[in-house]
Each structure stands twice: as C-alpha cells, then as structure tokens.
C-alpha cells in the first residue's frame, strides 16, 4: 500500500509540476506579496496589530499579507488545483489509462491528495520566503512588537512566522480536501473548482452570523487566524491545538467520502 502510494505520489507530483496552472499558482504566491509591499511603500505603513511593525521591521510581513488574504487567497489557489485533480483526468480520459496500470484506486487517490498537499505547502513556503525577504529588504531585520504589545527579537519572530504559516496551512489543506471530494463526485472541473470557492465563502458567511457565535471557534475559517495565538503574551497554544483537530475534522470526512466514491464509481469515459 505505502509503496503504491509513493509511486502514485511521484507520478502525480510530476504531472502537477509540469502543468502551467501549477506554476500560475506559484507565481501568484510569489508575486502577490511583492505587489502588496509596493502598495505599502507608496501608501505608508498601515495601522493595527502586527501591521504597526511595518516601517520598522520586515520580519512579520508574511503574516500581514496572510491576514489580508485570509480566506479567499488560499481558497482560490487550493480550488484551482484540487477541483481539477481528478475531474480533469476523467474528462481527458487519462484516468482510465492510469487505472489499467498496477495501482489500486485507493493508492492513486491518496497519491493525488499528497501531491496536492505538497503543492500547497510549496506555494505557502514560496510565499513565506518571498514575502519575508521582500519585507526585510524594505524594512530591515529588526525586533517586532507582538499583538499584546511585547517586543520580541527578530530571530524569535522569524521562527514564529514559520510556525504560524504551518498552522495557517492546516485549514487550507482542509479546504483543498473538500475540493478533491468535489472533483471526484462531480467529475467536472468547473463545478469542482467553483464549488470549492463557494464552500470557503459559505464557511466565511456562517462565521459572520452573530447568532452562531458559540459555533465560531469550531468553524474552519476561524482556524485561519489561529496563528494569532503565537503572537500573544503569554502564548496560549489552545487555539493552535484546536486548529489542528478542527482542520482534521473538516478534512477527513471529504477525504473518506472521496475514497469511497472513487473506489466504487464506474470509469466509463
């Protein structure tokens, strides 16, 4: 099983890397923060927690951009690839070609899922590297004032940046899992990509309903800001733990459902 997943993963990762759409996602992840930085430089430093640091240090710049793109940025990047990952192969007929080889359907779908997660992780890493370097060039590598108003060293803040990006990636992966589910179930790219974006928007909409306040901490979109916990003094950790299990709770059901459907569905085209 693990050998088969590894084989599928390598093949799927290769296919992803060779496609223009993937590089468009990478380009967006790299160019986005630079465009935002240029806007900041022309308009002056913004106000608000963490953003107040801009002008003094570039260390927290990646997180400032993350706050700005919150739900829709990663949702779009995840949806574009996740929604297509099975549907495009079904439409092109290459799915039946692959399914006549020596991989089981489970191995193939898990391989696709892991390749997708790798793509998203790489896009996030690229985003982090570009925005951090750009921020440091623009504003220097200096200490940062956290959300609680405490000053932390530049190196410490850089470490927290990395952990924050990892935490931020978890709900993004959960959104991508839903995209894979739609890709398997609909078998068509447009509904799968569009449906994933609508799903993220719907979650954001639910998060805006004040009467559901008690449920807000357990919504996926709220986990996109769980990294704030790392920039408070004292650092809690409860939000991070919750982000891990809530993201897993949102990711696993669509993954399991996708596996069941993918294994049972006839490949007739």
């Amino acid at each position, binding site marked *: 099983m693990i*050998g*088969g997943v590894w*084989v*599928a993963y*390598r*093949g799927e990762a*290769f*296919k992803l890397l*060779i*496609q223009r759409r993937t590089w468009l996602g990478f380009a967006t992840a790299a160019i986005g923060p630079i465009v935002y930085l240029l806007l900041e430089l022309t308009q002056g430093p913004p106000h608000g927690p963490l953003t107040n640091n801009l002008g003094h240090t570039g260390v927290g710049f990646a997180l400032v951009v993350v706050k700005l793109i919150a739900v829709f940025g990663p949702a779009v990047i995840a949806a574009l690839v996740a929604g297509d990952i099975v549907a495009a192969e079904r439409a*092109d*007929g*290459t799915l*039946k*070609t*692959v*399914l*006549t*080889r*020596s*991989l*089981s*359907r489970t191995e193939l779908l898990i391989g696709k899922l892991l390749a997708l997660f790798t793509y998203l992780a790489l896009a996030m890493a690229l985003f982090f590297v570009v925005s951090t370097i750009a921020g440091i060039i623009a504003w220097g590598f200096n200490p940062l004032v956290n959300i609680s108003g405490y000053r932390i060293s530049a190196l410490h803040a850089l470490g927290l940046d990395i952990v924050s990006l990892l935490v931020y990636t978890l709900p993004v992966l959960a959104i991508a899992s839903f995209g894979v589910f739609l890709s398997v179930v609909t078998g068509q790219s447009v509904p799968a990509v569009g449906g994933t974006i609508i799903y993220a928007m719907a979650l954001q909409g639910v998060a805006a309903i004040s009467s559901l306040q008690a449920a807000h901490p357990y919504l996926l979109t709220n986990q996109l800001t769980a990294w704030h916990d790392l920039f408070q003094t004292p650092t809690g950790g409860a939000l991070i733990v919750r982000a891990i299990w809530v993201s897993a709770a949102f990711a696993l059901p669509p993954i399991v459902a996708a596996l069941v459907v993918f294994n*049972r569905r*006839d*490949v*007739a085209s």
Partner: protein
Amino acid sequence: MSVAPSAPPIEAHGLRKAYRGRPAVDGIDLLVRPGEIYGFLGPNGAGKTTTMRMLLGLIRPDAGAIRLFGRDPHGDERAARARVAGIIEEPRLYTYLSGRRNLKLLASYDRAGVGPEVIEEALEMVELRDRAGDRVSDYSQGMRQRLGVAACLVRRPQLLLLDEPANGLDPAGIRFLRRLLRDLSARGVTVFLSSHLLAEVQELCERVAIVTAGRIAYEGSLDELRARAGRRYRLTADDRPRAEAICAMTDGISDLSVSHEQIEFAVAGDGALLRLTRSLAEADVVIQALVPEQLTLERVFFELTERPSVEDPVMA
C-alpha cells in the same frame, strides 16, 4: 505477485451490466485460451466496450464473475492486472508530455521498475522512436494509437485487450498492427481483440465471439461459423417472377433477393430445398441452375447480429 500459470487468461461467467435499467451486457460468458488472438465481434452498441471495461476493472458488473489468469480484477485488482494491458476505445495519453515521457510515467505506475531499454524497445516495436521526443499533442491519431500500444507493451503483458484498435488507422497502420499482433501472439501473448470490422477479425483470429444486444450470438471458430450458419443458394429459372413467388411461399426459404435474374435465398434444412424443387416442378417452372453459394463471413455476421433477439446462442 505472480499469476496462476495454468489459469486461462480470461474467464467470465454470466456478466451483466445495465445502464438506467437498459441492459448493455446481458449474460456474457467468455473463455479465452493462452496465446490465441480472440476476436470479440459485434456491431456498435452491442456491449463490447462495456464488457472490456468490466474485464479491465474500470466498471463493476451488476452480476457475474471475471477471472484474469485466475484472479478477480474487481476484488484483487493489482494481482489480476499484473500481466494484463489494454486500451479501451482510443488511447488517452498526456498530450502535454512527449511520447517517451508518457511511457516513462505510465511505466512508473506499473511498479515493475522497467529500465529505459524497455521503453526504447516498445517505441521501436511501434516504430515511433524518431518522434518519441515530440509532444503527444502533435501526434496524428494513428501515432497516438501506436503509442497506446507501446504503453501496453512496456507492461510486458501476457494478455492484451484492444478495443477497436484499427479505428483511425490508415491502411499502412492497419497492416502494421496486424503484423504486431501476430508477432505478439507468436511470443505467447494472448490478444483479446474487439472490433466491429469483420475483415480485421477474419485476418487475425481463429476463434471469435459474436456479440449483439449484450449477448453472445456465436462462440467458436470462424470455420465452424461458416459451416453452421445456414446455407444459401442461387436459382436460375425460365420464369423468374413465378419462381420468385414460389420461393417466397415455401417454408424454410428466407432472405430472398434477386440479382442479374438470379434468385438468391437462404435455406433452413434439407427439407426446404426439396419442397421448393417439388413446387417449382409442379408449377412447370424449369430449373436452369440451382447452385449452393459460398457464404461470406460478412453475411453470417449480419445474420447473427441482425436477429431480433438471441435466445439460443450458436456454440461451436
């Protein structure tokens, strides 16, 4: 995982598949022997492709059992497909990759660890080595068909399932394919060839199954099919219109047609011919010639596939 060496390459019993209540495959049985080129013949929509998809594990049968070299492609998918390769309809490949890169990618999915020499050998066999570095999007349909066959060959299959492989091929391509399949068969590879083209099957296969409306209408050798499928005669008489009318009224005479003043008809059993000659004599119609016609396989094919229903398949 190894395959059972003594088990037949394909064994299927009572295969059924319906789409929205309409049966596409309705109780098909198959037994394909090692090393043969087996023809799976039928008109479009007869259920050939659905059967092949079930054999390759792409769709699940509603009922029935399949064994490829003794393994169930739906329960034990990896083991069942270990030595099996196939193309359903036209080969679908990654058009944004080169031919060679397609083969490398698909070979990696086979987990057999084939080296570049196997890929080059497959490209050589399908005569695509010169164009292997080009993107598949630049290939003609015939080249894609050949690359699809190469993608099968890199698996080093013992069983090759090909669905209408001559589609889109020019005469040279068809001749090349026939040569390749004969070569493979000579090396011990079993070929299951589906086609609606009788000539293609006639050229390559000794045993066939003729399928129509999801059911097997005939299963056996082509020679026995010719012998068993009924006889036709050509009659020349001095009064053609009266002779034709008598033919039409005689029990056991069917499929009447007139060509160049000759009446052609099919005869079911010796009694019918006796009744006809007696009726003609009683009507004072002079028989100038009554000759048995050499049946073409094509006519047999149409007779079998254009029957309203196939209640009792002909088994050789």
